């Protein structure tokens, strides 16, 4: 009886997890992979092959959009790290125990409103007749209204704002575990601020940095609303291409192909990033 009950409770505990992974992640991915290998011949006629993938590589628009998306995502990740690290360090090491929770909460608050509302917030601020342009005009700093929306810089600002929290949280939790004695020892042994930062803080924070970078990169490359709303006439984004294939062109086969390629390509970028920095998942994210 005791053993059976134990086995049953184990089974019951695992069921939600298995269902979640199986039904919401594994099955849809298999479905997408299957659709991406389907070639459309005529109405409701299909054969199997790699034509959709060939089409992707033969059309420079799609290749360039994917590369552009990856390039901007890497830039956003780097910016999020540069801006997020000091914030995380302040929260984890410099701030007093009591204000720590409040500071952390302040970082979380923007996440309580949806992506859409945050994007519209930026639109209200940055448009030609928006808050910033109007204020500058009133103060006499500029003479004609300026348009700050609809370009890549706006997209990058919007994306950094959206994802930076996912950089700060893992960094704070890693840095909080660091013993201050390590820093003191570093200074005692004659290290400058920079040396201590480079040889002690960064290596210690590496699991947080890697985890944060992977999360922010994946989120950015897969984001849809922010680039579409803030981007304007010249900003192609790869998820927008996927949407267009599925919805505007009814071309599920190409859309699925793009989906698979985005997953493979972003995984490749993450792997390359780990290789280039000499890290591996086992020594960083999965470290005890």
């Amino acid at each position, binding site marked *: 009886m005791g053993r059976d009950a134990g086995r049953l409770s184990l089974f019951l505990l695992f069921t939600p997890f298995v269902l979640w992974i199986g039904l919401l992640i594994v099955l849809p991915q298999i479905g997408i992979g299957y659709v991406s290998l389907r070639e459309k011949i005529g109405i409701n006629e299909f054969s199997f092959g790699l034509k959709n993938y060939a089409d992707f590589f033969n059309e420079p*628009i799609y290749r360039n959009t994917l590369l552009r998306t990856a390039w901007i995502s890497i830039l956003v990740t780097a910016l999020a790290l540069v801006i997020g690290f000091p914030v995380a360090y302040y929260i984890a090491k410099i701030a007093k125990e009591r204000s720590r929770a409040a500071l952390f909460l302040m970082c979380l608050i923007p996440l309580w409103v949806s992506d859409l509302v945050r994007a519209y917030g930026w639109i209200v601020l940055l448009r030609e007749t928006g808050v910033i342009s109007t204020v500058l005009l009133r103060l006499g700093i500029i003479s004609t209204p300026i348009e700050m929306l609809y370009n890549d810089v706006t997209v990058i600002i919007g994306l950094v704002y959206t994802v930076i929290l996912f950089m700060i949280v893992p960094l704070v939790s890693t840095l909080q575990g660091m013993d201050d004695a390590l820093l003191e020892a570093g200074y005692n042994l004659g290290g400058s601020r920079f040396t201590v930062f480079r040889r002690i803080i960064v290596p210690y924070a590496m699991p947080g940095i890697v985890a944060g970078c992977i999360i922010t990169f994946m989120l950015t490359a897969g984001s849809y609303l922010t680039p579409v709303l803030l981007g304007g006439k010249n900003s192609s984004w790869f998820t927008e291409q996927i949407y267009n294939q599925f919805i505007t062109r009814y071309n599920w086969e190409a859309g699925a192909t793009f989906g698979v390629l985005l997953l493979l390509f972003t995984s490749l970028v993450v792997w390359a990033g780990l290789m280039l920095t000499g890290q591996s998942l086992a020594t960083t994210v999965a470290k005890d």
Partner: protein
Amino acid sequence: MTSILRALLGGTAIALLAGSANAETLRLLTWGSYAPDELVQKFEEEYPDIDVEVTFSNNEEMIAKLRATGGTGFDLAQPSHDRVYAAQTEYNIYKPLDLSKIDVDKMTPKLVEGVKANTTIDGEVYSVPHQWGTSGIMANIKEAPDAKGWGDLCDPKYKGRTSMRLRRTILLGMGYALGYDPFSLYDDKAAYQEMLDKVTAKLIDCKQIIKTYWTGGDDLSALMLSGEVILSETWDSTAFKIYAENPDIVFIPPETGALAWIDTFTLPRGGQADDAAYKWINFVLRPENVKIMSASTGSLAAVPNAVELLPDDKRAAVEAAFHDRDIENLKFFANIPPGLEDMEGIALERIKAASN
């Protein structure tokens, strides 16, 4: 242990049964503003056993949603008249209408015949008209008094002050502006592609003139009312709404003819509340309800005296925009043959990706 499981299963079964015994639900898949709260409440008061659930969408998403579910999940959809035929032949997502259950005689005969001609497959009619309107351009006549056609959207003198939606409508409009008749080229893929290539080149050139592509009615209204944009491609209904707030901004039917669409009533194949759907169709056709509907949509209903049933401000806007010769000159969207949207999709992507 098993008794607990059995009890749980029993409880679930009862919960499921209780769920299905609830009132009938009418699930509408329609356009933003096509189901105003006032009208939904009135309908639910008249038919207390029907609950109305509304999902807002657009032509492309309606087809994609219904295709994904094989036509289930909704009981009444409202695609435009040119989007029914191809979607039905290719994806089989709709079911034929029982015209005897609809007060067809209350609708404008010309529109009914037009929609029937477009949506009859194997002798079965799939759609009846609901609201109709046009696409054209709107201008702030104080700043752009001479605008009269699609081509003016790319006029260098309006640099940075024009806008359009990067969808198929603008491809067709620019086709007309370049002297083509796109609808007559629908059956000749090679000729249509040639036109698309010209239009693509023109619109890529045009990118340096326009400020941005608008994506929805609210977006467009903000651009026009703030004065950031003075000339834009538009739906007439959006222009009529803006006219109420700023009478300098008027809808202009392009000289080559405004492009006319008719949004229809069409039953999804897996709909489970056909009777409720027919009740809704007949309900919104009643003159007093047409008035509420048109006040919300800003478009004309497919009933003979539709203009009189518009609220005053909208009627003024329609009268300021359309003259008899514009009505004569309307170009109704023709049925899109399968495959055409893929060609247009590539053209749209080229335009979006071109840097200029």
